């Protein structure tokens, strides 16, 4: 069957009948001498499968005087005027308009554009080389040329960069030699005339070598004032944003730079391409990607000061007669469109049993009881899924579960909230009230970010009953509410991202006036002493490198209008919740709970080098979230009522290996607390949670029947089970480890979480036995309770045979219950 598919695929390539051509870009405006444009020609077959045929096509111009065709699809300006660019492939053609302007006019030189551009393209200022934290070989460059003025200083004046101070270390030996330009280190090293740890980057006769040489001969200027007025790049754009190719297929990427004056130019040949996974795809210096292994990865594109990315999918054989997949809501279109491009057919919609168990666990962390499973399966109401979702969203178990979830993210813990359970429990109550009343998430975030006084939300700022260092507080808030990790920029400019150390400390400065007066959290006014002089004290944040006093500035470096005696965090909070990052981070985090991975994954690690798998989906969810008033329940309802969410976990031939495109439901291990509650629910024996302090009467115990997700201060309650199954420490932002381990296996065999429950007097099994239930009825009841489905006939027969072989019926049934709750099907949501 696979061979047949492959044969059909090859036939499709060989026979271009029915193919339509798509040229990109369709309209080009070249400005200045030497301007060029790389074109891309895609052939789209009848099934909508695209193929890059740029290299195979014939390229021509309606006016040869205007421009020249240099190589496959690359056109260079010669003279001003307009023309059509025509690409011909397999008897069909496509064309684009070309306009050339100022073909005889060289743009004014500027170091940032010309020299930094070369250094970026050649990888000199990458994180692994001179763009690293301390630079390399005594030369420090800013990552991706983010700070060209600094780079110019290091190159033309020399000296060694120091991380902790702005002072220059060592003798200052320039990397350019104005007397003998060819002997400049900036040339001799990358050309390997002198030994160079980074190897040979270009030849002496290369355009880049010659450009640098010409610059040094001209006196190594930074650039005229006129040049300084040149528009700056504001963003890079890759086309296509998602490229799909078969195994060993090739696909070219185009890169367009957008400038501050609204113009754009082709940068395909001026950027550095790199693949996030060379196992899946490789990329050449001019942006041609080759598929190496089935899968998906990102191609990172760097130009001076900017990073962009394009997703690349290496797909299997095309699916003939790809089915029409209905879209149920805004989630489905971006998911199913991508699946179609990747030639992955989504699995069927889950059956009622699968759906009900999944949605109950995802919305409430609770297994559906057997009676509800039977009722739901028997119902013929066409709207029963929507109705049950509404019931779950309105249930008290929903409030319990999402209070637990947000208590994790918001770190409700004694040590994290002032060293007293009184404060951490008040903080928990605040979270619970917000969940119960479905308070808009932007309001919740705003209150937590800016909380002053003695209220519950302010307790978050008192780890160990002290105000935390501003840099730590800021990094956590940005990670929680904006999904970004800025920590690397604390000590130096971020080596992989565009976050600078100045940006980091500018953001941290919003928290630098956080102060504790008694138990009250305040923001110390800038313009008032408040007895500081009595002890020679100052409330200010000093930049660790420059030693300058840092003023609050948001990530785009803008200063907000802050009153000297006002709460700076209130202004920051307004900025945060209004920023596109906020809604993106929120929907991505919630999405991650329902699918086991975020659209950006990890959910709080948005960065250019970790692009979203479904940017359109992320944007659509974020837009809807904002439009609906940051309503978390609405967001969850949208997710669970999508067809994407309701797909079965049973794979088909096309989607078996895919794990990131939501072609089917992926099994996810239950979180420790949910699993323990599930074990308690199935066995009918609640867990006993005792406080870990063992000092006589000071020892407490949660009321009987308290669920693990309902513990206000989980760190007070020691639980071997919860530790083994990955309950996180809320001392830092919790990261759960749900991977199986040997300890879990031993606990299943001999631990109290499993074994002691089986023989308990009040257990579900004991009640069934007391009622005189037959074996088959007992099996079925436990299947419903644990797995949310009826036992299949073959399973029942196997169980009956196994039980018949046992002399002790009750012991045999206990073993059956143990086997059921030890099974992977039970321990996962699928």
């Amino acid at each position: 069957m696979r061979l047949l598919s492959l044969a059909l695929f090859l036939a499709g390539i060989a026979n271009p009948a029915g193919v339509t051509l798509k040229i990109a870009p369709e309209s080009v405006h070249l400005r200045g001498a030497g301007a060029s444009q790389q074109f891309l020609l895609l052939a789209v077959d009848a099934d909508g499968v695209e193929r890059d045929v740029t290299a195979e096509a014939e390229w021509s111009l309606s006016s040869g005087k205007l421009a020249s065709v240099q190589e496959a699809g690359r056109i260079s300006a010669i003279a001003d005027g307009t023309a059509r660019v025509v690409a011909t492939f397999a008897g069909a053609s496509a064309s684009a308009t070309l306009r050339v302007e100022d073909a005889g006019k060289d743009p004014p030189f500027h170091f940032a554009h010309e020299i930094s551009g070369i250094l970026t393209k050649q990888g000199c200022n990458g994180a692994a080389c001179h763009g690293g934290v301390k630079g390399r070989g005594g030369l420090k460059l800013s990552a991706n040329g983010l700070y060209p003025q600094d780079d110019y200083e290091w190159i033309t004046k020399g000296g060694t960069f120091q991380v902790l101070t702005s002072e220059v270390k060592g003798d200052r030996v320039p990397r350019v030699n104005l007397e003998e330009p060819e002997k400049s280190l900036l040339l001799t090293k990358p050309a390997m005339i002198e030994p160079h740890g980074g190897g040979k980057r270009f030849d002496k006769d290369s355009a880049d070598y010659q450009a640098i040489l010409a610059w040094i001969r001209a006196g190594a200027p930074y650039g005229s004032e006129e040049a300084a007025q040149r528009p700056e790049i504001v963003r890079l754009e890759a086309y296509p944003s998602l490229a799909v190719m078969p195994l060993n297929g090739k696909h070219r990427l185009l890169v367009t730079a957008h400038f501050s004056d609204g113009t754009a130019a082709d940068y395909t040949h001026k950027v550095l391409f790199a693949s996030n996974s060379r196992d899946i795809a490789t990329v050449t210096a001019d942006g041609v990607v080759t598929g190496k292994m089935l899968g998906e990865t990102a191609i990172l594109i760097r130009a001076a000061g900017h990073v962009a990315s394009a997703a690349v999918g290496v797909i299997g054989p095309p699916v003939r007669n790809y089915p029409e997949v209905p879209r149920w809501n805004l989630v489905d279109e971006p998911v199913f469109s991508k699946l179609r491009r990747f030639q992955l057919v989504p699995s069927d919609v889950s059956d009622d049993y699968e759906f009900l168990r999944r949605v109950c666990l995802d919305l409430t962390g609770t297994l559906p009881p057997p009676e509800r499973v039977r009722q739901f399966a028997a119902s013929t109401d066409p709207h029963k899924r929507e109705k049950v979702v509404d019931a779950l969203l309105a249930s008290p178990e929903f409030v319990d579960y999402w209070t637990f979830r947000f208590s994790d993210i918001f770190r409700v813990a004694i040590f994290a909230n002032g060293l007293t359970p009184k404060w951490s429990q008040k903080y928990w109550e605040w979270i619970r009230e917000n969940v119960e009343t479905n308070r808009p998430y932007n309001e919740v975030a705003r209150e937590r970010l800016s909380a002053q006084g003695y209220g519950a939300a302010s307790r978050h700022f008192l780890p160990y009953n002290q105000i935390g260092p501003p840099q730590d507080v800021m990094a956590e808030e940005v990670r929680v509410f904006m999904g970004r990790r800025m920590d690397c920029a604390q000590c130096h400019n971020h080596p992989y991202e565009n976050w600078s150390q100045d940006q980091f400390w500018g953001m941290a400065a919003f928290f630098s006036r956080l102060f504790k007066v008694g138990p009250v959290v305040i923001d110390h006014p800038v313009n008032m002493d408040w007895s500081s002089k009595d002890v020679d004290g100052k409330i200010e944040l000093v930049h660790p490198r420059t030693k300058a006093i840092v003023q609050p500035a948001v990530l785009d470096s803008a200063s907000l209008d802050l009153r000297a005696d006002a709460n700076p965090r209130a202004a920051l909070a307004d900025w945060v919740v209004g920023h596109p990052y906020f809604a993106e981070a929120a929907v991505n985090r919630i999405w991650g709970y329902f699918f086991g991975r975020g659209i950006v994954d990890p959910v709080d690690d948005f960065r250019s080098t970790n692009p979203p798998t479904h940017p359109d989906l992320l944007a659509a969810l974020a837009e809807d979230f904002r439009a609906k008033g940051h309503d978390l329940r609405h967001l969850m309802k949208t997710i669970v009522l999508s067809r994407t969410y309701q797909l079965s976990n049973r794979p088909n031939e096309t989607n078996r290996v895919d794990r990131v495109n939501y072609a089917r439901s992926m099994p996810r291990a239950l979180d420790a607390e949910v699993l323990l509650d599930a074990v308690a629910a199935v066995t009918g024996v609640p867990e006993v949670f005792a406080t870990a302090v063992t000092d006589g009467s000071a020892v407490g115990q949660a009321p009987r029947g308290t669920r693990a997700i309902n513990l206000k201060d989980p760190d007070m309650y020691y639980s071997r089970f919860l530790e083994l199954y990955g309950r996180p420490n809320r001392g830092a932002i919790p990261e759960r480890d749900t991977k199986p381990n040997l300890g879990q296996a031993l606990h299943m065999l001999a631990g109290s979480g499993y074994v002691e429950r089986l023989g308990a007097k009040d257990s579900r099994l004991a009640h069934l036995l007391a009622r005189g239930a037959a074996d088959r009825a007992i099996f079925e009841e436990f299947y419903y309770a644990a797995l949310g489905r009826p036992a299949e006939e073959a399973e029942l027969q196997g169980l009956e045979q196994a039980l018949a072989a046992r002399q002790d019926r009750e012991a045999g049934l206990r073993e059956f219950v143990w086997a059921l709750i030890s099974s992977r099907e039970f321990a996962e949501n699928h």
Partner: protein
Amino acid sequence: MKLFRFVAGATVLASLLASEPPSVPPSPASMHPFAGMRGEPFEVVIRGTDLGAVRSAFSEESRLRLTVGAIEPEPPNEANAKSKKPFELLRLRVESPSGLEPGQYDIRLVSPHGVSNALPLHIMEFPVLAEPAGSHDSEETAVRVESAPALYAGRIERRGEVDFYEVQAKQGQTLTFQVLSGLPAPGSPGGNARGFDPAVTIFEPSGSWFDPGHMRRVAFSDEPLWVIGRATDTHLVHTFAKDGRYLVRVEAFSGQGSPDYSYQFRILPGEAPAPASHNPDWQERSYTRPLSANRLNELAERGGIKPDKKSIETYRASADGPEFRLPGTLLGTIAEPGEMQRARFQIDTPQDIAIEVETPADDPPLFNPVVRLLNASGEEVASNLMAGRGACSGALNKSLQAKTVVPLRDTGEYTVEIRDATSDLAGPGFQYKVQVRPQVPHVGDVGITADRLNLKPGGAETVRVNFDREEDYRGAVAVLVEGLPPGVQALAGADFEPDKDPPMHAGKRERYTPRRERSVVVFTASDDARPTPEPHLARIVVRPVAGGKPGPVIASKTIPVMVVGHP
């Protein structure tokens, strides 16, 4: 040699077996119930150690008739399993006249070995219902409350135990639920390390999609505001959204439990006020002390000076900063976030002034008034924020003070500025009263450490009397003791006080803290002092001495004193 060893060992063993239990006073831990109705006799059980020799019970309120009944060893339980001393249960019959004022009365136990610590007994004006026997840990076993008001005496005997009460409520009906601990929790007034901090949760037994027996949480209260030094008792006012049956769960904070965890559960109609705690002692630096117009005379009396000062005028501070004259009291409310109110005054000669702050409604940590004193150039001369640097890290720390003394050496105009420490919080409860006045030397807070004295003939006990010299009070302080039993004397003494390491950087601490001194009274019983079968109430009295004359009594404390056993 072996024989010698045997004889010596046997002698030691015999002497151990023959020895009497140690002669220590009774040590009651708790009383259950700790409330009863006036005019109605009732019985309480006191749990504690060394109760075996108790012969009587004692209260300063002579109209209470207390009769000691049976004393039994406590059956083994999880609370006494690790105890080094055996716990005993003492039954006490309480009778009170119907005219006795409702309130709290201290009860002590008396044995030949001395008088015990006090346990509070609440005399109520309405019946106290006992929590019925058995467990009430579920909807099915909940105690049914027939009507409000009602008061139940219950107990959380074991860890993890909860007591459910069932109430019927109408839509829109408001009820107040109070749970008072019989053994105050650590950090609360009279707090005990083993104390009990109650909490209540209201549930609606409406079921859920998952569980028809699920109880939906409607309201929860631990205490109105948790602050160290305030009561941790529960006070929950709830208005019910619909008619129905509700369950109210009483439990101990964090699931603790003990036979000492006795509580009163009060269900009151409407919005009842929270039980107020009253501290009759002088409080120099409390935000809630009343700063009256007669403040100068009150202070003068505590300095032993004739109270002949004029009343202090009252002014309104505002954003415009109106003028006022010293001494003056500024009134105002920080009604809007970030609001600052001011008032100006003039001095023509250098003065030592005091700035005191009272918060008549919301007090710290809800309303945290920052009061600054600015000179004519707008520079901060002083504030009520005491700054210091931590001993370990040198970190800057600040705390708000209710009183600041400032020496003003420059004449001219000054501005008093008042705001909240936060820039975001304000409200009608953010009311302040700031008194700016000349300093008046006086004795501030006085602390007397003794609770009771059990003296053996020929023995001695030391009682420390701490007092604060405020505003450069340089006079003497007299400490007198009245009402001692025969053979007992109170003598002035001295005591060793170890040096303390000075703080790394104390700042201008003298502006915010008084000079604290300690005096010692040594109580001695003569060798031939006769044991007292009942406690004598001795009164320790403190008076300032100025101009060679003792002033009025500014602090006193009554303590029971007994002469017990033999030296």
